Structures are given as C-alpha cells and as structure tokens.
C-alpha cells in the first residue's frame, strides 16, 4: 500500500513541474499589465477527474470516473456540476464477505477563487462545497453463519439487488493551473461527510459510488484535466 502511495505521489510531483515553469513565465509577462474589469461570464470549464482511474491502475478494487462542467463568474464564483460513475467488485480475503455495485453519481456545488484579484496568474487556489447523491443497488454475501453457542444451526447470508441511496457533502480545497493554451489541470483534496445513507435490516452500503468505502477515510482527492471554453 505504501509503495502505491509513493508511486502516486511521485507521479503527481512530476506532473506539477511543467505548470510551475509556465506559471513563472506567465507571471513575469503579465504582472505589469493594467487591471481590467472581469466579465460576468469569463469561461466555461469542462473537466475530467482521472484520479479514480489512477486508483484502479494502482490495484484498488474500485473504479470511479467523473466529468465536470464549471462556470467562471467574474473569475470569483464558480458553480459546478460533476457527473460520474463508480463501481466495485470486491471480496474481503479474511472473512470472504463479497460486495459489488455500480452506479452513477452527481455532485452539485460551487467553488470560490481565493486569487480572484490576481487574474494575470495562470493558476489559482480555490475552496468549495458539494452536495452529492447516488442511488444504486448492491449485492452482498458472506459464508453461512454458524450458531456459536448451540451449534448445529446455520443461516445463509446472501442478498441480491439491495436498494441503496446516499447523500453526502464534500468540502473542497484545490488548485488549478494552466498547462497549455486552454488546457488546465488541477488537484483537489476533499473532506466528505455523509448526510444520509439508506440501511436495510441486514446491511448498509459498504461502497457508495462517488464516495468510496463508507467506513474508511473521509478524505479523498481528485486529479482533473480541464479544457477552458472561453466566452
């Protein structure tokens, strides 16, 4: 696990270097230009989060990919919609619990550009919030349960097509940086908090598409490739 994290970290470190170089050059060119009024709609951004795919490459049981569309209003407020698809098919090796699901998810929210007064910069730091939702069905099974006290009694554990539904919020901090003309890339770190998670009598969703494992870390990250459609 540690090796995988180090590999991901090195990959991100290498990928950030060209944008830092570009940023330094652009700042040099633009820092002395006169201040202009930002247009109401500055641009529309179309992005793809490939962080979830990277997790699959590094051996994770789950895959997640999403696309986003962001409106840049006065280079300050950025309402965003993210639509994606997540899936998992996993078996826990220690207790043979098997779980699989696949479903789309949606995240709606807005970001705030902390560097809105410095439009000459080719990148910026932002913070934001998302309200997220996914409705899905899942299959869950485990070995037969044997009565630990009386013995001689077993009960099967297998449930197919269980209906699940989850709503959660995400608090986002990230950066976006220009890499070439209208192409940008960005990273975001996210803190997730579940608002509602539909349980049944026999289980609760162990993996939520767009969220990840429901009982694991509440922190996540995205790695976005972005194309800026100028107005």
């Amino acid at each position: 696990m540690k090796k995988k994290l180090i590999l991901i970290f090195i990959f991100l470190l290498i990928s950030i270097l060209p944008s830092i170089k570009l940023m330094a050059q652009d700042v040099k060119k633009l820092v002395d230009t006169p201040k202009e009024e930002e247009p109401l709609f500055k641009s529309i951004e179309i992005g793809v989060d490939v962080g979830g795919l990277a997790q699959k490459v590094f051996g994770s049981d789950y895959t997640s990919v999403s696309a986003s569309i962001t409106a840049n209003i006065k280079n300050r407020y950025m309402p965003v919609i993210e639509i994606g698809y997540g899936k998992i098919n996993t078996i826990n090796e220690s207790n043979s619990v098997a779980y699989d699901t696949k479903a789309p998810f949606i995240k709606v929210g807005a970001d705030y550009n902390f560097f809105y007064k410095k439009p000459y910069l080719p990148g910026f730091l932002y913070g934001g919030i998302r309200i997220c939702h996914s409705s899905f069905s899942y299959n869950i099974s485990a070995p037969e349960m044997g009565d630990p006290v009386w013995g001689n009694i077993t009960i099967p554990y297998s449930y197919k097509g269980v209906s699940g539904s989850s709503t959660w919020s995400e608090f986002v901090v990230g950066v976006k940086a220009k890499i070439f003309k209208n192409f940008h890339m960005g990273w975001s770190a996210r803190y997730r908090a579940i608002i509602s998670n539909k349980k049944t009598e026999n289980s609760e969703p162990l993996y939520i598409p767009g969220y990840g494992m429901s009982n694991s870390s509440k922190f996540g990250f995205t790695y976005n490739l972005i194309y800026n459609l100028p107005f």
Partner: protein
Amino acid sequence: MILLLSLVFMLNGCNSNNCPLTTVSFAHFEFLNSTDSKQHTMGDSVVITGFTVADVTVNDTLKDGTVTTRIVKDSLLNEILYNKPTTSMSLPLSYKSTTTYVIHYSKKMRDTIVVEHKNIPYIESIDCGTMMFYKVNNIRYTTNALDSIETVNPDINNEEKINFNIYFPTN
C-alpha cells in the same frame, strides 16, 4: 499543495477498522423487586440452562446394513448458560426462532422463559464480517418464583442495554 496531497494520502492510508469487540448479541436481563422496582439480588445457587429446537441429521443403520439419513427435530441443550447471576444476566439467543431458558433456583424450584425472536443477520463493515441481531416477538414464562417479565427493549444487538426486567417478590 504537495503537503496537502501528502496529507490526503496519509489519511487515506490510515483506514480505521472500527469493528465491534463482540459479534455475539446477548439478551440482557435485570432483576428487580416487584414492589418497589429496586434491584433484586439472587441467591448464590442459581444456574441458568437453555435449549432450542433444531433440525438434526440422523443416520440410521438398517438391518441389511445400509445407512439412511433423515432430519429430525431435536433439542439442543446448553447445560450452563450463566452461573450464579446476582443482579442481572446476559444470555445468548439461538439462530432458531425460539430460545428457552430455565432458571434453576434450587433442585425443586425453577422457572422457564421462552423467547420468540426474529433473527437478523447483519454486516456493518466489509472488514468486520457477519453478526446476528434479534428482534423479540413474544416472551412467555412460568411464575413459580418470579412475578413477571417486562420487555424494555425488543431489539437485541451487540450493545450493552437492558432488554428485559424480571420482577421477583420482595420476600
């Protein structure tokens, strides 16, 4: 930003495994005086036994030497479920729909408690595996020494909370 990403990875790497310490659910009984609902203390010779009825596979050897297999209903006895309870006791339930407990006060005095319950297999986390919870549908009992039984909480799970109050005469 690099520090931020490092933090995210570190936090993701520290997935906590919050599995419960016990996966066996117990029915918790508290002993109370029927007159004033104060705590009732049992004598030190009390023993609880239990049984349930389950399908048991029996192999019969016929006269011609062939072996046949059949399934019969049989009682599965648990000789001592709890020894010398004083003011309360926690008893396991079976994976069948009825569990019977016998409270042996002495060689000649005993009460029988029959708990009818629904079994609820449950998985809380993929790391923790299966657990069995129960919902009490009905409780029947004899009143040789005890007065009555009150169901306080019909949901029996791995939490430490009282499910039944057993009331005894003060004397």
